[in-house]
């Protein structure tokens, strides 16, 4: 399948995920990631959004080879593309190879990172450790200077270097974690909800810093967040997940203007406007399907105002819809854009980007 977006001539992949599936083993296994296909371009910022519990963190853990039992990769592959064209099969690495690969190529700011610092070491000790390991040429004085510089980069007073994690606010801890990841200078940086505790001013400063460093060092970022407006602002490309699958993917501008998948529409439409009318603020009625079920239908069907019979009987493939308003940009997993399955052309209102939530009472359970 051609997953390469067409929005940029210079686009070349740094990471390709093919058919990735992850289960959490249990009496009824949880199929948290289901046949995900995704490609990340070199130096690109890919935004990843989707419902709480839909598998975003699991996907990031799997790609970084950080899954622990009961989680298991049950299918698919992840390929890392080196700048010289060589490829690494990430799932085939082990031992020292894997350690070196993770250390040099990938870095991850974990969700809940504000809780991931070592509670008994000062910020300085923890930053210095990372610097010593990654920039062995630095001497003590230089490390001290780098530490201060890093904190300033993320807007924390360098005098806080001697503080312990519990003496920092939630957002300050998040910023220390971001600073640490930046020391690693990876090819691919995963950031899982890295800014939940940051005010919008600081958030902007940090995002500007990340985009600047990205331009300077050329790393790619997978940015996971629930904040759609933030995502639209920072990402080159966006992937939307629902119930373990990617249901839509494409260039940010296209996705903003002409979202194809009704779930994407719902997400974009339910975002409360700062200045707008507060009446009728509600999300998308209905509930996410149980991830222990195997889904041979559209997972969004119960909640979708556009569903038809085919949606309950067949899982829509994630494919390009060249005749849709999206043209050649991106893919969506929705029958409504495939007249041969849906029976008719896509409804006008869908093309106009309307999401009229079906009432809770209409939702079939």
């Amino acid at each position, binding site marked *: 399948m051609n997953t390469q977006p067409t929005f940029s001539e210079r686009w070349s992949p740094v990471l390709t995920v093919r058919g990735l599936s992850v289960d959490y083993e249990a009496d009824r296994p949880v199929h948290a990631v289901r046949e995900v296909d995704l490609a990340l371009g070199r130096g690109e910022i890919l935004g990843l959004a989707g419902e709480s519990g839909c598998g975003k963190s699991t996907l990031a853990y799997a790609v970084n080879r950080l899954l622990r039992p009961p989680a298991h990769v049950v299918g698919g592959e992840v390929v890392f593309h080196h700048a010289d064209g060589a490829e690494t099969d990430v799932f085939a690495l082990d031992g020292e190879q894997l350690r070196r690969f993770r250390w040099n190529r990938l870095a991850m700011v974990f969700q809940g990172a504000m809780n991931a610092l070592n509670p008994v070491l000062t910020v300085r000790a923890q930053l210095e450790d990372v610097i010593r390991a990654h920039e062995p040429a630095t001497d003590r004085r230089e490390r001290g200077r780098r530490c201060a510089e890093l904190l300033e980069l993320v807007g924390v007073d360098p005098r806080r270097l001697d503080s312990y994690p519990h003496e920092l606010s939630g957002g300050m801890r998040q910023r220390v974690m971001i600073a640490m990841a930046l020391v690693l200078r990876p090819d691919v940086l995963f950031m899982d*909800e890295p800014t939940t505790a940051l005010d919008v*001013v600081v958030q902007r400063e940090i995002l500007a810093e990340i985009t600047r460093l990205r331009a300077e060092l050329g790393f790619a970022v997978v940015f996971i967040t629930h904040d759609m407006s933030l995502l639209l602002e920072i990402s080159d490309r966006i992937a939307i997940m629902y119930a373990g699958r990617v249901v839509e993917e494409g260039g940010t501008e296209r996705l903003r203007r002409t979202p194809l998948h009704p779930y994407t529409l719902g997400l974009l439409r339910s975002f409360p406007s700062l200045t707008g009318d507060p009446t009728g603020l509600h999300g998308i009625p209905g509930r996410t399907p149980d991830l222990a079920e195997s889904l041979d239908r559209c997972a969004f069907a119960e909640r979708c105002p556009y569903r038809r019979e085919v949606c309950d009987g067949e899982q829509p493939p994630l494919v390009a819809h060249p005749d849709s308003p999206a043209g050649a940009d991106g893919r969506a997993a929705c029958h409504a854009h495939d007249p041969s399955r849906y029976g008719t052309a896509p409804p006008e209102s869908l093309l106009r980007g309307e999401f009229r939530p079906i009432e809770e009472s209409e939702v079939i359970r």
Partner: protein
Amino acid sequence: MSTFEVRDLVKEFRLREKGGRRRLRAVDGVSFDLSAGSTVALVGESGSGKSTLARMLARLLPPSSGEVRVDGRVVGTGRGATRGYRGDVQMVFQDPFASLNPFHTVGHHLSRPLRLHGGRLTSSELNERVERLLERVALVPPDRVVGKQPHELSGGQRQRVAIARALAPGPRVLLADEPVSMLDVSVRLDILNLMDRLKAEEDLAVLYITHDLATARHFSERVLVMYRGQVVERGDSDDVILRPRHPYTRLLRSAAPDPGGSDPLTVPVEPASTEVPAGDQGCPFRARCPHAMSVCSRRPPEFPVGDGHLTSCWLYESSTEENT
């Protein structure tokens, strides 16, 4: 009826640093009221003292000075009083990864406060209450969720367990520190609507700490803006968010994304990492303020700029004269 009166609350921390120790005023003389049946949103800079303030209100941290009165009385510090207080005043912590016990199931997290504060319940009543709580925070199917441990849940799912736990004892005051920051819009709106309903139906008083100005506006009656330990602006939510007056609130507002709105965002942001020294007598924003004047080296009192709308900024000094 006023539920909660916060008066002149101060929290100082001592910080180690290279040259010795230093004092930090994390909360610097904060006063406000939190009333039954209404929500106050607390927004502000990261590190401005919001969580510290909430932890003092929850009695998890003793204030350096100042007091909190409940229905006009200062609550005693004895064991009985503290226990009653903790049932009435519940907190949702900012970090759901740290605030749940890794060894306990979801069911245990919820049934404990129910048993402790909910009176005598049979085990089937207890189960029913637990399931209802889970339904309310959209953790379904409840019978499958109760047996899970925190590490088996996603970030947003943990956040919802934390909210359900806080609601379990039927509190009168809810201190919610970034309660929905890891939830998608849809669930986020569900939870905020739930808090809104409880506020109306059960006379809950809510302190909603958030970085999301849009939901701060839509889900609260009043907004407080904090900067470096101080409340720099307060007023009805529409006034503060739509017509901000303090230069810091304006900066915040201009940096907020607004997908549905029209005004473009322009203001360039001056990074500022340097903390204000504890003994500082001036306006805490003056190092970054484009309007700073010589008078700003004295701390500005609150000046009225509208009906119930106050801001601590010398720019509005003259408005007092007009108003009096």
